[in-house]
């Protein structure tokens, strides 16, 4: 058994709201296996985004330990650079910088690491080809459709060569058809790169389509309700919907979500 990609040990988060502490996530332990596609799903207020933002090092946990690729994420002196370097994050909004071209946006992580321009651009082009938007290198984000912008955001998250890719409702703002297409694309990209992926979604369909394992969270305070393995072979195709096993997983998840919401 190889080293886990991510390990959460009794991690909890409280938010301070007007003097009183509101628990967002109760003490939670979870291991994300290296190279797996793990999906966090749950009703709103279940702490799934909080959990992802903690794994991403954007907010510190109130208690507990997080390890990323074997490194503790937080040390007494703050965020651990060795751990943060292993992470790539895709947000719900593409968050591309409007003043940069697509290519410069994708190359931003490398620029911040101080890579020379030629190397940055070469890598950005390679990634744009991988995510399927070659030819848009010199456009600005505004000139691209929502789906294309999110592809660029995925390329940017991959630029630093992270071992772990975190996605926070990445396709939530897209229309249903683009979303389905992006799910297939994400699966393809992941099968080429084989990163450990943690994806937050509120779409049951998206969860069952993409996941190796689904972690279902229940709200107030957020806690793990159950973990569901999805064994369908890959690459999964859009027609998987007709598969009875797929349908029963979706149905089971829907019923459980209805019960805990």
């Amino acid at each position, binding site marked *: 058994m190889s080293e886990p990609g991510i390990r959460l040990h009794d991690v909890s988060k409280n938010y301070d709201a007007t003097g009183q502490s509101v628990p967002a996530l109760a003490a939670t332990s979870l291991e994300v296996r290296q190279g797996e596609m793990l999906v966090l799903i749950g009703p709103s207020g279940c702490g799934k985004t909080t959990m992802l933002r903690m794994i991403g090092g*954007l907010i510190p946990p109130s208690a507990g330990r997080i390890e990323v690729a074997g490194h503790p994420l937080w040390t007494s002196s703050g965020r651990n650079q060795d751990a*943060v370097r292993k992470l790539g994050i895709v*947000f719900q909004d593409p968050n591309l910088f409007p003043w940069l071209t697509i290519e410069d946006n994708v190359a931003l992580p490398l620029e*911040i690491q101080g890579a020379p321009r030629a190397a940055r651009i070469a890598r950005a082009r390679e990634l744009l080809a991988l995510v399927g938007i070659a030819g848009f290198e010199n456009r600005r984000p*505004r000139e691209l459709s929502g789906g294309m912008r999110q592809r660029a955001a995925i390329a940017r998250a991959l630029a630093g060569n992270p071992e772990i890719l975190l996605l926070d409702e990445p396709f939530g703002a897209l229309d249903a058809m683009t979303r389905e297409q992006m799910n297939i694309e994400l699966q393809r990209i992941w099968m080429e790169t084989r990163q450990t992926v943690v994806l937050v979604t509120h779409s049951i369909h998206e969860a069952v389509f993409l996941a190796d394992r689904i972690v279902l969270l229940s709200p107030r305070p957020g806690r793990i309700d159950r973990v569901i393995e999805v064994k369908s072979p890959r690459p999964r195709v859009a027609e998987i919907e007709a598969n009875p096993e797929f349908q029963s997983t979706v149905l089971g998840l829907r019923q459980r979500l209805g019960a805990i919401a």
Partner: protein
Amino acid sequence: MTNWSRNRLLPWITTPLLALALLLSWHFYVRSSGISGFILPSPGQVWDSYLDELRSPALWRHTGATLYETIAGFAWATAIGLGLGVLIGRWRWLETTLNPFIVATQVIPKVALVPLFVVWFGFGPASKVLLAATLAFFPILSNTVLGVKSVDLGHRDVMVALNASRWKVFTRLELPSALPYLLTGMEVGVVFAIIGAVVGEFLGGNSGLGYMLIAKMNAFETAALFAVIVHLTIIGFVIYWLMSSARRLMIPWHESVLVDRANP
């Protein structure tokens, strides 16, 4: 004719026509009312006087003085407004500390400071540069503060996730985000700087277009007075045009530029 080209061409027709109508009514009013040329010269007299002034070295010497004061004052205002604006936008405590003083500098009628500036810096250009800078400073500062505060939180998350240093966050995110705001502040500020320079020249010294206006008034050369006003207006237009060109060149990605391009 498409809507686009009609909108684009329209000002090239309406502007000269309206200007001509104004000049003609001015001309005929002067003609028919028999008003004294000391009170209101005709457009023709103003034009002749302007041509005379354009040939005289005095006008160009005074223009140079005013331009120097405007640009130097504007440069100081930009440097201090930008620097202080970035710090204030970043640190809330600094804003709380400095805000009463910044507001105080704004509620003082700045012209009231001119005698003080003259006492400190004499009748030379320095006191006018200072007045121009004082006037131009505030819009640049307040727009920079707004710009630094308006950095998109999602963009900040990206930089945090990338573990960017403070310096990289500043140069790669905060500065480009704030640039449209800074340029807006500079557009307002540069016009204020001209006002500061001219008003400063009214009140002290013997050079600059403001001084020239007073000299023409005292000499009852009303047509020449108008000519200097026309000259100042043209300078104002040119400076404003330069600033808005800078906007188009420096932030071609921004909504304010894209909207202009879509609806010229």
